[in-house]
C-alpha cells in the first residue's frame, strides 16, 4: 500500500516576478510529522500558502502529488475537501458569522462534494462538544463570531478546533506557536498530538524549537533562501536552537 500523502518535486514559485521558492523537494508519508524551520524571509509561509492554493503566488515549475492527484490543479476549496488543512498564522475575523455556523457550512460543503448527506444537527453538536474539549475551547467562543474579539491564544485554539472538526489528512500549521504563552502552547500541542493517527500527517512550520518540545517531529527540514538546505531528525532542531541560523548561512557560504 502507498504510504505517501504528499510528494513535492522541484517546486518553484514567484510573486510579482520575484522568485521565493527555488526548488523544493519534500515527501511526507502517513503517520509522519515534519517540521520546517528557517529564518525570516526564507519562504516558509509562502510554501504553506502555495500548498493551500492562494492565487497571488505563481508556480513556475515543479509538481505536487497529493494522494495521487495533481494538487496544483485543484482549487483552494477542492484541496480543503480532499483533506488539506491550513492553520493560519493570522486567523481572519468574520463579523456576524458564528463559529458553529461557519463550521457547519464548511462540513456540509465538503459532504456535498463527497456526495454525502449533510451532517445532522444532533451529530454536529455532539462533534462540536467532543472536539472543543480537545483544545479546551471556551463554550461561549463557539457561538461567537468567527475569531472576532478573540485573544491571540483563543484564535490559535480555534484553528486547532476547526482542524479537529474537519479531520484533515494533511495539516499544515503555519507558525501556530507565534503569540502563544506557554500554557496555550501546551494545550494547542496536546490537541495536535491527539489528532495524530497512522492515516494522517502534519507539517509544522515554525521559527523556534520550543514548539517541537511538544509536537515531536519525525523529520526537521531547514528552509533557507527558498530551498531546503538540510534535513535531519529532531536533534537538528536542537542544534539550530543552540547555534542559531547563522551557522547554516555560514556553512552554505563556504
Amino acid at each position, binding site marked *: 500500500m502507498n504510504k505517501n500523502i504528499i510528494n513535492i518535486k522541484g517546486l518553484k514559485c514567484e510573486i510579482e516576478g520575484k522568485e521565493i521558492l527555488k526548488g523544493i523537494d519534500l515527501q511526507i508519508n502517513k503517520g509522519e510529522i515534519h517540521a520546517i524551520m528557517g529564518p525570516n524571509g526564507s519562504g516558509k509561509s509562502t510554501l504553506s500558502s502555495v500548498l493551500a492554493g492562494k492565487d497571488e503566488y505563481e508556480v513556475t515549475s515543479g509538481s505536487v502529488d497529493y494522494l495521487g492527484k495533481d494538487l496544483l490543479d485543484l482549487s483552494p476549496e477542492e484541496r480543503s475537501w480532499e483533506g488539506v488543512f491550513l492553520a493560519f498564522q493570522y486567523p481572519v475575523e*468574520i463579523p456576524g458569522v458564528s463559529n458553529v455556523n*461557519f463550521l457547519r457550512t464548511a462540513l456540509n460543503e465538503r459532504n456535498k462534494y463527497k456526495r454525502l448527506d449533510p451532517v445532522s444537527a444532533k451529530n454536529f453538536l455532539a462533534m462540536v462538544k467532543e472536539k472543543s474539549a480537545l483544545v479546551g475551547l471556551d463554550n461561549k467562543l463557539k457561538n461567537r463570531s468567527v475569531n472576532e474579539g478573540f485573544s491571540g491564544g483563543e484564535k490559535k485554539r480555534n484553528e486547532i478546533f476547526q482542524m479537529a472538526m474537519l479531520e484533515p489528512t494533511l495539516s499544515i500549521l503555519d507558525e501556530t506557536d507565534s503569540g502563544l504563552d506557554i500554557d496555550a502552547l501546551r494545550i494547542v500541542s496536546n490537541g495536535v498530538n491527539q489528532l495524530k493517527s497512522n492515516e494522517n500527517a502534519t507539517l509544522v512550520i515554525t521559527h523556534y524549537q520550543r514548539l517541537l518540545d511538544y509536537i515531536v517531529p519525525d523529520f526537521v527540514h531547514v528552509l533557507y533562501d527558498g530551498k531546503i538546505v538540510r534535513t535531519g531528525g529532531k536533534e537538528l532542531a536542537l542544534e539550530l536552537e543552540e547555534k542559531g541560523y547563522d551557522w547554516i548561512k555560514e556553512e552554505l557560504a563556504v
Partner: protein
Amino acid sequence: MAYTEGDLKKDLENKEYEFGFVTDIESDKAPNGLNESIVRFISEKKNEPDWLLDYRLKAFKIWSNMIEPEWAHVKYEKPKFQDISYYSAPKQKKELANLDEVDPELRKTMDKLGISMEEQKRLSGVAVDFVMDSVSVATSFKEKLGELGIIFCSFSEAVQNHPELVKKYMGSVVPATDNFYAALNAAVFSDGSFCYIPKGVSCPMELSTYFRINDSGTGQFERTLVVADKGSYVSYLEGCTAPQRDENQLHAAVVELIALDDAEIKYSTVQNWYPGDKQGKGGVFNFVTKRGLCHERSKISWTQVETGSAVTWKYPSCILKGDNAVGEFYSVAVTNNHQQADTGTKMIHIGKNTKSTIISKGISAGFSQNSYRGLVRIGKGADKARNFSQCDSLLMTDRCGAHTFPYIECENSTAQIEHEATTSKIGEDQIFYCLQRGISEEKAISLIVNGYAKEVLNQLPMEFAVEAQKLLEISLEGSVG
C-alpha cells in the same frame, strides 16, 4: 473538467434575475398620458365616491404645479409622464368569490413567485394580498381575520366597504402636498392594501402584500394604509418583483402607518424590483414615500431589504408625536452593476422620552452608487429624546461608491444623540480563509454579507429572513473584484 471562472460568469448571466418572466394575460389599460380626464377615468373605473374623486383632482392640481426633485444622489433620465399608462388591470369577467376563481395564468405567476396561496395558508399562516400592476387580485384569509375584527383587503375594497376609515386616515401622514411623487400617487393611485387592527387585538399572523408590475409601459402607484388602533399589534410584510424589460418602469407608492396609543406596527419590506441589466439598461424607478405616525407609547419598526430597482429613492420615516413613542429603522440596501440607491430614514421626535434607533447597512458592488440619507430631528418639546444611529457601508469592488448624508437637527438640550459609521471593503483574506475551509467563493460572500447584515436580517419574520438571505446571495453573485 474544472469549473472555471468563465463557466461561473456564464451561469451568473443566465440566472441573474429569476423573476423576469411576463405573465400573458389580457389587461384593461388606460391610454398613455396624464390629465384630468385620466384621473376621472381611474376614479370611475373604480366606482369611487365623490370625495375621493375630489381628493384625486386636488392632488393632480398640486402635482401639476410641482417640480421633480433633484436633491437625491442619483442620476437618471426623468420619466416621461405623458408616455405612461396610469391604469392597467388584469382583465377579469366577474367578481371573485374565492381564490379558486383567479385566472389560471395569474395563479401561475403567483406560484412562480413562490406565493402559492394554499402553501402560505397551510405552512406559515400568512395572509397575502396580491397586487399585480394596479389591481389587487386576491386576498387570502379574509374571513378568519374578520372574526377578530381585523380588516385586511385591497384599498379599493376598503374605499367601498369602510369609507369612514379610509376618509379619516388617508393622507393624514403623507398629504398630497408632501412631495412630487406623493402628489402623483394621490392623483392616480390605482390600488394597494388596507389594514385595520381593532383596539387591543394582536394580529395572530403576518399580513403580507405582494406587488408585481407585469404590463409594459405602465406605472405602479399603490397606496398602503395600516391603522393599528389602541393597544393593538400587527406585523406586515411587502414583497415586490417585476419582469425584465428594457424600458424603465415607474413605481411611486405611498405607505402610511398610524399607530394609535400603545399600538405596535412592524413593517418589513423585501424589495426586488427588476434592477436593469449589466449595462444599466431598463429597471424600475422606485420613488416611494413611506411614513408612520406614532401616538403615545406606540412603536413603529421599519425593516427593509432592498436589492432591486435601477434607482431607489426612499426614506421610511417615523413621526414620534406621542410621549414615549418608539421608532426603529433597520435597512440593508444592496446595489450592484449600475444600480443607484439613495435611501435612509427620518426620525422626527416631537413627544417627550421618544426613542429612535437607526441601523443601516449599505452594500455596494459593481459600478453602483449607494447612499444613506437620514434626518434625526429633536423638536423643542421632545425632552430626553434619544436616538442611536449606525450607518455601515461595505464595498465589494473599487469602482462602486458608498455615501452617507446624516442630518441632525436638535432643539432640545436634554436629548441624547449618537451616530456611528463605518466603511469597509470585503477582504480577500476573509474569502481565502473561507475557501481554505472548503467554503466556495459564492457561499463565502453570502456568509460574510449575511454576517454583516445580521442585525437587520434578525428583525425580519422567520420565513422572510430566509428569502432575504437568498436574495442577497443572488444579487451579489460574482461581484467581488
